[in-house]
């Protein structure tokens, strides 16, 4: 075991916060009632679910009635995309998304394409920014939906959500935002933004896995994709995951606190320190994504003449958990679609690395990561034929 264990993959998932776990625990074996039952057990569970809904709604400035709990962020994305288009397909069959979406959105649009919808994919610039002017040009009379992520999970770029929402509103296009990476980490209010639907996931904000939510603005109709007992206003059948939902509520409460008390700003300071250390101490290492409009916890790089998986495994041996968009980490031979959409060459994209900080990351952790990465890069470059002429 390495001298230090530094988990820097909070974009993938976070630990369940101790307080969140404590809030959840009674709902397994003590308060195990079905929230749909009329008896006391059921009523107590229903009360807990309702309270959690209030807390999740409060995080994004929504009304509790506008929050639909699902089994994952991916499910909420699918509900928004499939559920909204299935109700509107008589109005038009043109839908728009972007080139850097998570697979939950990208593949749902792929499914729409197979169903006969016409899909437009907006490009991004070299910083992974979507252009609102491109969106305006892409909208047609028969456009029914635009889906764009709030912030990118690989490079952290925060999109012009409010501006895109205004365009969609003016042109009568429904707007879905995948907010899985941003919710709980970037302050926002769905009313001010003017979005119609927004996806969240508990496990990206110190809540449990297996619970997501869709914000559905009052008046916006979607068709369910899971039919059954009519839970969640008939939009997501299946007995509520009470403990998970309670955990989501507690995580949302924690997020509200962290957004208000400066924790998120401190995280951004540590992120900037890591960016500065890596880009100044390692030759041919550059930041990917937008330099300022980025998630406070995410630092992403491309390291020249190296391949991501080899760096990840050497980092892992040093007790550091990170991730990469290289082909070798994906099981395919193609590097990440996000990095390619940003115009990076394949060989550059293979050298991508992502460090995502968490609420317990310390400055010592940052120093440890930067020092180890510098050493690992030097060791691997000594093996790389692409680095030869400079050695």
């Amino acid at each position, binding site marked *: 075991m390495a001298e230090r264990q530094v988990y820097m993959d909070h974009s993938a998932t976070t630990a369940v916060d101790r307080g969140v776990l404590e809030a959840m625990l009674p709902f397994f074996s003590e308060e195990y009632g079905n929230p749909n039952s009329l008896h006391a057990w059921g009523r107590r569970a229903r009360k807990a679910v309702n309270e959690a809904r209030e807390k999740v709604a409060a995080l994004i400035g929504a009304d509790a009635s506008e929050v639909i709990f699902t089994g994952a962020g991916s499910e909420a994305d699918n509900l928004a995309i499939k559920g909204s288009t299935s109700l509107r397909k008589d109005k038009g069959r043109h839908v728009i998304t972007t080139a850097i979406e998570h697979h939950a959105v990208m593949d749902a649009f792929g499914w729409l394409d197979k169903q006969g919808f016409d899909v437009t994919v907006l490009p991004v610039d070299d910083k992974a920014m979507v252009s609102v002017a491109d969106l305006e040009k892409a909208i047609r009379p028969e456009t029914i939906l635009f889906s764009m992520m709030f912030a990118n999970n690989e490079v952290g770029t925060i999109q012009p959500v409010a501006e895109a929402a205004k365009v969609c509103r003016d042109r009568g296009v429904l707007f879905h935002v995948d907010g899985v990476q941003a919710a709980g980490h970037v302050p926002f209010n769905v009313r001010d933004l003017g979005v119609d639907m927004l996806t969240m996931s508990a496990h990206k904000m110190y809540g449990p896995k297996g619970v997501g939510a869709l914000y559905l603005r009052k008046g916006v109709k979607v068709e369910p994709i899971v039919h059954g007992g009519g839970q969640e206003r008939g939009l997501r059948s299946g007995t509520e995951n009470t403990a998970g939902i309670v955990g989501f509520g507690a995580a949302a409460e924690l997020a509200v606190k962290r957004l208000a008390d400066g924790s998120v700003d401190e995280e951004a300071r540590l992120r900037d320190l890591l960016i500065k250390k890596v880009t100044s101490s390692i030759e041919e290492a550059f930041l990917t994504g937008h330099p300022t409009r980025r998630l406070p916890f995410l630092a992403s790089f491309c390291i020249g003449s190296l*391949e991501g998986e*080899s760096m990840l495994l050497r980092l892992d*041996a040093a007790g550091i958990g990170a991730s990469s968009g290289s082909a070798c980490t994906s099981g395919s031979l193609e590097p990440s679609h996000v990095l390619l959409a940003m115009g990076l060459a*394949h*060989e550059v994209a293979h050298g991508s690395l992502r460090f995502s900080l968490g609420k317990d990351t310390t400055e010592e952790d940052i120093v440890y990561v930067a020092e180890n990465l510098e050493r690992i890069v030097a060791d691997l470059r000594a*093996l*790389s*034929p692409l680095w*030869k002429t400079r*050695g």
Partner: protein
Amino acid sequence: MYTEKVMELFMNPKNAGRMEDPDGVGEVGNPRCGDIMKIYIKVKDDRIADISFETFGCASAIASSSMVTEMVKGLTLDEALAISNRDVVNALGGLPPQKVHCSLLAEEGIQAAIEDYRAKQKAKAGAAVSKS
């Protein structure tokens, strides 16, 4: 995902680094696909007297490079050419299916280095003939 042998060679590769004045050099792979393997050999009495590699790629590419260089060191050129990627995979205790192409690079890298050596020898012999 990787066997202990793969991880051991990835963390501490044998015969790694560039070689000065090699008798043959083989370079295979493509940076676009994420791996390039470069094999350097010194040949004495038709045997691989010394060998080293430089590899840009994932852990399995680096471990395959290390393994194949160990396997062919001291072999005659024909014996070295008979080493297949299957032999490399077996010696590594297996590779995940999507990584088997890395072992193919190892086989091809050795072949390319030997071909380069033989082509150079031929050119030298030709030059010697034309001089005389």
